[in-house]
């Protein structure tokens, strides 16, 4: 049996803020089993458990990025992740498609109403709508620069183009997002004086 050593809460938050990819694997290894156990106990499959884990992780990530999460008393974010995942799955099993199922809720982990879940959902939806404006080539450049924090020379080398080309692409792609954001906000696009 693999015993996982605790990850200090502040390290988790820092790693999520820095977009450290290893933290996603660590959180999966540490917290997915208990989420899977809960989902399976309530008529869910492995795939269902993975879906709610992803939703919970995304909510955690956004709230960390926007400074709305503090580690719990044990200095971990596991409790937060579990509560979000559980609420998500309970919402699913209570939905019309799952009304026939029997819900097994352990009292110890009774569902918790999280602060402003609808607000976070709305925020995620808005950010996804903005990102939807990008094609694959823009994503290739912007993901590397803003998420992976690669420098221009590394991006240029990996894409096989000159640094100046990457710089131009980055600017143009971000302008696509700017335009998309204005469309979402319903800003009049007709006045475009330079």
């Amino acid at each position, binding site marked *: 049996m693999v015993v996982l050593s605790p990850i200090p809460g502040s390290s988790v938050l820092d790693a999520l803020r820095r977009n450290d990819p290893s933290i*996603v*694997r660590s959180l999966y290894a540490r917290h997915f089993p208990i989420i899977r156990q809960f989902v399976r106990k309530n008529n869910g499959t492995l795939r269902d458990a993975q879906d709610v884990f992803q939703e919970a992780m995304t909510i955690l990530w956004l709230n960390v990025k926007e400074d709305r999460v503090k580690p719990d008393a044990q200095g971990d974010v596991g409790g937060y992740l579990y509560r979000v995942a559980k609420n998500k799955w309970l919402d699913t099993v209570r939905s019309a498609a799952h009304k026939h199922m029997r819900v097994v809720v352990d009292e110890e982990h009774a569902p918790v109403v999280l602060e402003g879940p609808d607000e976070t959902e709305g925020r995620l939806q808005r950010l996804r709508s903005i990102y939807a404006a990008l094609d694959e080539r823009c994503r290739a450049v912007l993901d590397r620069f*803003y998420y992976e924090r690669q420098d221009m020379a590394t991006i240029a080398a990996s894409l096989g183009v000159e640094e100046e080309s990457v710089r131009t692409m980055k600017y143009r792609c971000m302008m696509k997002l700017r335009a998309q954001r204005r469309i979402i906000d319903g800003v009049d696009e007709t006045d475009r004086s330079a």
Partner: protein
Amino acid sequence: MSKAALRQERFETIEAYLLGTMGNAERIAFEQELASDEDLRAEVDAQRENTLAVELGAFTRTLGSVVEVEGRKEEDGWMRGSSWAPYLKYAAAVALIMSAALWIIGRPSANERLFAEHYVADPGLPVPMSATDDHVFQDAMVAYKLGDYAEARAKWAGLAQERPESDTLRFYIACAALGEGDATAAVPLLKGVGDDGRSVFARKARWFLFLAYVEQDAVTEALAVPLDDDATYGERVRAIKAELR
């Protein structure tokens, strides 16, 4: 947020501020400007949100791939422990035999192999930072460099209708076609540019024409391409022709 277009220099200043890469003195000056300029504050907020949208998109992909990989490991672990696991080795052997049979049927011809060994896509032209005079051409070049040959080809083809005489357009449309694996479309364009002694692309066009003929198994045409004495391509052309003969 202002309705006016955001110039690249201004965009990069805001970006440096948001990423924390701005020097101390510059940051203090920028924050002073920020305090008194409502439009700039709105622009900074918008750019912060756009950056977050990019990070969310990339995070979602990372998360999806971690869950998929780890989930597969769990499924594999479950299969190893299941009662029918001993039969997996027989299934693997059947799969191996079928793969070998498919490979033998579908393996590339000698000419396709020669083409694959020698074909390297042309790197394209540099895209200048302030290219504002010919956006469509530059956008297509960016697409070409990223391997999006269909998009590059479509954009350049539109321009070629207005400028059919342009050897640059004809050459790069052919390069994009070759990149897409469409040697048939590339050949007439490369032939035209290769025969144009005044074009700076003439030698490169003959090289790609030669490779296109190799890929098409048009041995007679490939042998007739006059590049044997070329300082850049001659050695490779002679070697390939020796194999073709």
